[in-house]
């Protein structure tokens, strides 16, 4: 019963949706269309700034703890400018958990000199490695959340194209954005059809129908891929992706560039000391 109740509201939502494209599992919802100084910056500039900031963070040795404090202030400052609520940031930071979970084990499996903390013997090098992963991943994710909050996905893709990222990579990212919704909608319909016929897998050994759904979804997506390719061929595609991103006009690098500039300066000081 619980499963049906979970599905029903989203069916209702799909019906009431003005867009009529059914259920939305949209990457676009990461973006908040507000008017802030950060929103108004060109996507290309934001991408370069983000890259510069990430580079500075990654290059900083973990022992330079004050540097990380400054990075945190920089991120928080930009987030405040972008009017990104702390609650939203916190929720979106959860995505890093699977990636940093490994870091939790490092103090215990690390080699080298050990020290006793709360009765547990932990590796000093392991502790630094764990801190490094946690701090860098959190700062990186937080900065990326700002980009997603302030920039529509389509602008990010166009920005990547203008930065001469290989077009095939931009196209793959674009396809993912474009078809995530379509595939999620298909999965949703398969689930509804399955539940409508009385399926309610509760335990692992009842999962046969779920596995069949996954298989069906894979085959359908594969076939869709073939049809999309046909549609591309029909419009003259010969293997080279053309440039379709609109021209964004002249770019204003100042004052956005100050942000990664400060981070890079901090990183240089931290590395050379």
């Amino acid at each position, binding site marked *: 019963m619980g499963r049906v109740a979970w599905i029903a509201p989203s069916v209702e939502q799909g019906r009431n949706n003005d867009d009529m*494209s059914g259920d939305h599992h949209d990457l676009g919802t990461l973006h908040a269309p507000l008017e802030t100084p950060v929103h108004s910056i060109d996507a290309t500039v934001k991408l370069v700034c983000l890259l510069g900031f990430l580079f500075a963070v990654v290059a900083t040795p973990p022992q330079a703890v004050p540097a990380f404090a400054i990075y945190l202030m920089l991120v928080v400052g930009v987030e405040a400018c972008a009017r990104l609520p702390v609650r939203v940031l916190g929720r979106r930071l959860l995505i890093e958990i699977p990636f940093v979970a490994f870091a939790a084990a490092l103090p215990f499996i690390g080699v080298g000199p050990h020290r006793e903390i709360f009765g547990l013997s932990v590796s000093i090098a392991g502790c630094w490695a764990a801190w490094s992963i946690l701090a860098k991943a959190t700062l990186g994710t937080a900065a990326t959340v700002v980009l997603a909050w302030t920039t529509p996905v389509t602008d990010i893709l166009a920005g990547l194209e203008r930065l001469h990222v290989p077009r095939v990579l931009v196209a793959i990212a674009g396809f993912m954005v474009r078809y995530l919704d379509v595939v999620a909608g298909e999965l949703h319909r398969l689930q509804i059809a399955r539940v409508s016929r009385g399926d309610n897998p509760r335990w692992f050994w009842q999962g046969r129908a779920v596995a069949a759904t996954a298989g069906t979804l894979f085959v359908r997506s594969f076939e869709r891929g073939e049809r999309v390719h046909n549609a591309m061929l029909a*419009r003259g595609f010969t293997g080279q992706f053309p440039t*379709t991103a609109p021209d964004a006009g002249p770019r204003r690098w100042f004052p956005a560039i100050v942000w990664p500039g400060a981070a890079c300066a901090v990183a240089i000081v931290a590395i050379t000391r």
Partner: protein
Amino acid sequence: MTTPPALQLAGVSFDYPDGHTALRDLNLSVADGEHVAILGPNGSGKTTLVLHLNGILRATTGSIEIDGLPLDEANLTEIRRRVGVVFQDPDDQLFMPTVRQDVAFGPATLGLTGPDLDTRVQLALERVGMTAAAERAPHHLSFGQRRRVSLATVLSMDPTVLVFDEPSANLDPFARRELADIIQAAPQTTLIVTHDLLYAAELCPRAVIIDNGTIVADGPTATLLADADLLAAHRLELPRSATLARTQDGPRPRDEPTNGP
């Protein structure tokens, strides 16, 4: 010198790799500017035929010419520019992040850039009344809007032949009407592949019935649709309501083909 037909298929046969014969010795000639309905039941070879018209599938035997230009490797790019195919599922056709980029994809692959490209995109979107949606993502549009944008993506290539695969499928009555108006006004040679007989009757003075991979009837749409036995023999049927209206009011007058062969 006479103008060559917009579309000429001579003895076209096609076998799928699994040995299934989808088209057998198919002959069809469509004059410039003509609107023709391709009718047939499911599995009759309609979609296979569509995929032949711009060389996505290549005939096992027989030949295809578009405006007198033979469909071969050398002419493939030009033929794909001339033949605009609007596929059944707009989600297959619209693969770019925004409507504008999708409409620009075809002309951009042909090498257009800058203001030329912008003009093409603008004109195509105006033709289908979707200018306001240019910066939107395709999956945020209604099904009917997506179908119209699909049409814009081929119009931007300045085609001479338009091919629609099941254009009325999944459309609500209003979206159906909007699309019909656009198709009706199209100056291009137009092929409508469908089993929606009323839509065919409305949009095409001429119809061909295809079954089991070959053409079994070719003539004025009104004549073919009035032949209940012919329709029944090929798993086609007018909606009951339409037949009823006809028996009550007598046969409705329909356009005769103006420039058919």
